[in-house]
């Protein structure tokens, strides 16, 4: 499979100059996505996954800056491009779906107006669209994402739609210009379980139909095998484990991945077992400061929460290494470093 | 609210810091002014009329030598003299106290009234106004009017009846009598609308013409006619806060309504009120200056900045300092308040202190 997106040694940190030892939000990240592949990026809130996603789009907020690294999208380094070129790529080649359907749509514009905006913004590309054609394509898009009565919905305002419907509109907007890569940042976290399932099905179906790649960001491991071909597990700005999603989920190596898996609620498992597991873990929430930021050279980032921690883990940080006998699996843990 | 954090924020925002410094200067000056110009034999006498020294420009020397040594700093009239030969500097010092106190007290009154009315309106919102509450309010209002027009005994009697009603309003039988079509919110907002219909300056003029002229009456009057803005701000914030979970949680814990309003909701609603209050101080000073300019303000010979302005209007070209100096001072005070107000709101907002 040809490579589409290749992030090399990406580091993102705070932009303020006052901080002498700059804390990192993302450190030395390597991530690859091939054509028509779907990759999941998993981690808890604050681990830097959303920041990675928006840095691909070049939308980092003012407080953060790219310290190092390159993001190759089809041989071009996105970080070296200017605003004008990035704007051309955004929406037409790489598009993004955000988490909060309630606030991602402009409440004073109709659905139709917002959909049309996507086309109009890229009008001065190779394809230019006429007014009639844009409207037809909008209706088709809404039909593709499963909204009933698409022609009437074009005139509707966002507050008339439910969360699931709004998220479908967001997907329609993302798919409008048939991008090569779609970044979905926790698209179903704010939705109910039934709607979540529908949205995931929709995403998968569209991805297959249009043969585009998908970067799916989530904190819920149970969704991963259904959505992603490969998975990256992230913690405190570092990749802790990566590999084919089914393999990682059925046979996890890193202690953090194991913890994430055990956190998935299973009503049929005996309660005593679960209680025991978490009784042993150190109470994570005791006065931990904003745990996004981590200073350099302090050993493995997961040491304070790890159940299998050894003295080595506090002294130095392990590298992300391939597992000898398994292809495509890499772990960052002293337990597996030979 | 941590004071140290607040001070740090203020120091960071140099504009607000500048405003705060200016304001503190004026505060210092006005307090100084009370000491320097008060009493029967003040150091700097604002009332002493020296006709032979009239209309002297700033930094002018006094004509007789003895006068210079005893009474004047540096032997000069620092800010000149007015048409009656009075020392403008002394008068400005005396006037500073008046302006500041009028500014603060009237804003204090208006903010207090505004918070209470806006808070009640925002918190009780859609509830039907109980018959008891309505009668109590009407009695209070009538009693107030009676008292202010010097029918004291009757007014106090009505106050007492209203108080009795308010105490017993929570009993089961009485509290269930309601008037179906009037909301607390609508009722209060219509009162606010009525008050807003009157152009405030004319309202003040009318009241000032009726009541005996004194500095206290002016403060009360300005306070009583400018609470509407605050009430609306508070009501708007309360309407939003009421739906927040922590208010519902406070209700569930069994906290009394008063406690919820003043301890939980009000500190969160105070932001726009603070900005409005700082602007209100500025505006109150201007109103007082305007009243004095028209001759309806603080009675002479007590100096206020407006007085000095008023006296100077006849001599605009001969002695422009009589107009410029008080005018410029008013502008500086108002400016310092405006600059400081915005920063104050940021200081009080806990989310920005993260």
């Amino acid at each position: 499979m040809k490579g589409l997106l290749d992030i090399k040694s990406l580091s993102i940190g705070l932009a303020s100059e006052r901080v002498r030892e700059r804390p990192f939000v993302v450190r030395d990240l390597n991530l690859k996505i091939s054509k028509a592949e779907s990759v999941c990026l998993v981690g808890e809130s604050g681990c830097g996954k959303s920041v990675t996603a928006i840095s691909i789009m070049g939308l980092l907020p003012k407080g953060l800056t790219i310290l190092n690294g390159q993001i190759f999208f089809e041989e071009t380094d996105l970080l070296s491009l200017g605003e004008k070129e990035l704007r051309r790529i955004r929406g037409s080649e790489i598009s993004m779906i955000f988490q909060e359907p309630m606030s991602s749509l402009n409440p004073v514009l109709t659905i139709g107006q917002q959909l049309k905006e996507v086309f109009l913004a890229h009008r001065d590309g190779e394809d230019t669209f006429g007014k009639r054609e844009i409207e037809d394509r909008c209706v088709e898009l809404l039909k593709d994402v499963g909204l009933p009565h698409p022609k009437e919905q074009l005139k509707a305002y966002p507050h008339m739609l439910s969360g699931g419907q709004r998220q479908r509109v967001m997907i329609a907007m993302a798919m409008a210009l048939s991008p090569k890569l779609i970044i979905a940042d926790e698209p179903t976290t704010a939705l109910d379980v039934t709607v979540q399932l529908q949205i995931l099905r929709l995403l998968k179906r569209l991805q297959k139909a249009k043969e585009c790649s998908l970067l799916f960001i989530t904190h819920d491991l149970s969704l991963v095998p259904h959505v992603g071909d490969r998975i990256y597990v992230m913690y405190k700005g570092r990749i802790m484990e990566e590999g084919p999603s089914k393999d990682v989920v059925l046979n996890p190596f890193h202690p953090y991945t194991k913890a994430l898996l055990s956190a998935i609620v299973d009503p049929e498992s005996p309660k005593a077992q679960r209680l025991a597991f978490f009784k042993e873990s150190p109470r994570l929430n005791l006065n931990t400061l904003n745990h996004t930021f981590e200073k350099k050279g302090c050993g493995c980032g997961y040491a304070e929460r790890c159940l299998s921690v050894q003295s080595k883990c506090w002294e130095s940080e392990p590298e992300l290494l391939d597992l000898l006998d398994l292809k495509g699996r890499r772990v960052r843990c002293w337990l597996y470093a030979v | 609210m941590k004071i140290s954090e607040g001070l740090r924020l203020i120091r960071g925002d140099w504009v607000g810091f500048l405003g705060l410094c200016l304001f503190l200067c004026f505060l210092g000056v006005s307090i100084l002014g009370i000491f320097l110009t008060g009493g029967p034999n003040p150091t700097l006498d604002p009332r002493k009329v020296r006709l032979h020294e009239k209309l002297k420009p700033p930094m002018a020397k006094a004509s007789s030598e003895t006068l210079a040594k005893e009474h004047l700093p540096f032997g000069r009239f620092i800010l000149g003299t007015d048409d009656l030969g009075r020392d403008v500097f002394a008068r400005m010092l005396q006037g500073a106290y008046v302006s500041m106190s009028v500014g603060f007290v009237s804003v204090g009154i208006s903010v207090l009234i505004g918070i209470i009315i806006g808070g009640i309106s925002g918190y009780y919102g859609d509830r039907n106004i109980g018959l008891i509450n309505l009668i109590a309010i009407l009695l209070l209002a009538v009693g107030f009017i009676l008292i202010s027009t010097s029918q004291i005994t009757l007014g106090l009697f009505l106050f007492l009846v209203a108080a009795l009603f308010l105490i017993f309003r929570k009993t089961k039988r009485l509290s269930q009598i309601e008037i179906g079509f009037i909301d607390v919110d609508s009722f209060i907002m219509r009162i606010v609308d009525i008050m807003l219909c009157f152009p405030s300056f004319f309202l003040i003029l009318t009241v000032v013409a009726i009541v005996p002229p004194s500095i206290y009456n002016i403060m009360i009057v300005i306070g009583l006619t400018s609470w509407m803005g605050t009430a609306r701000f508070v009501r708007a914030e309360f309407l939003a806060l009421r739906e927040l979970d922590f208010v519902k949680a406070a209700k569930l814990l069994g906290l009394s309504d008063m406690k919820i309003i003043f301890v939980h909701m009000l500190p969160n609603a105070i932001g726009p009120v603070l900005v409005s209050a700082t602007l209100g101080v500025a505006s109150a000073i201007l109103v007082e200056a305007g009243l004095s300019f028209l001759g309806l303000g603080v009675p002479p010979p007590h100096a206020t900045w407006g007085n000095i302005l008023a006296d100077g209007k006849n001599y605009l070209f001969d002695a422009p300092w009589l107009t410029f100096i008080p005018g410029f001072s008013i502008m500086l005070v108002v400016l310092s308040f405006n600059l400081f107000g915005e920063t104050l709101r940021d200081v009080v907002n806990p989310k920005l202190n993260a």
Partner: protein
Amino acid sequence: MPFNDGYKETILALEGVCKYFHLKGGYLSSKKQMVTAVKDVSLSFPKGITYGLVGESGCGKTTLSHIMAGLLPPDRGKVIFYGEDLYALGYREFKERRKKIQLVFQDPYSSLNPRLTVGYVIKEALRQGNVPKEELEERAQSILISVGLDPSCMKSYPHQLSGGQRQRVVIARALCVSPVVLIMDEPVSSLDVLIQAQILDLFLEIKQRLQITYIFISHDLKIVAYLSDIIGVMFRGEILEEGPSLELYKNPLHPYTQLLLASVPKIGDGKGLLESDPMEELKSEEKHIWEQDINCCAYYHRCNKRSDECVSGPIELKVIGENRRVRCIKV
């Protein structure tokens, strides 16, 4: 008869509770639309039981939770607490009784007053629980430890704590007045999976320690089934199915419950979950809340087993077997 084991005393019961919301059409509009948020709900909660209420957003479970907690009087029906009609009590008695029913809200960010420290909030709650002044500090510390927080966080403001920590403070506050009923409205929905698991385990721990009645509300069936003894499934203001949790989880009777169960992604499932019938998608589209007909099955528009007899008239909640109730003609 609503569910009752017989030997456990019923602490809280809802009888025929209805709540309507009027949509104002403006001053000049004569159109007055009414949304039925809760329709004729009758439930009973025995002492010490954990009752799980499942339903999607907009089904009325939050409204129901407010009615149960004493925040919202129902338009019809009664809330019976300790044998007395809660909303018919006098003002002072009502406030005292209501304290014994506590509610933990969904959003940990708005559940705490941003201007008050954690210590103040807890101590204020303890004072409402009639704890004498001398014991305040000690009790505050012990309650914070019991929810897994370090007592040094008493000096912190809410914005200095993480979402999980805030939720623990909210739970601690609710426990300060020693309630007998604790209603939790989606307390973990906005938290990460790891923190969710911790908070859920905290609930289990508290449940073992204090024998109080829990009412757990969520849209996620697996979380509800994990914690509860009895589950009630709610849809558009009505209870569609009710029964013991494991039984319901393994053998759902109502088509909606079956859909909820099928929506739970299981790890060992493979890609089968995502290959769906395209017609299924369109059928399950949500219609506007106020387009419902009152006199037929509320789930009709989304049901995959629907037929004409489902719209013929109102459907009753039938008792099936021991302790199960279902509202469906097909069962």
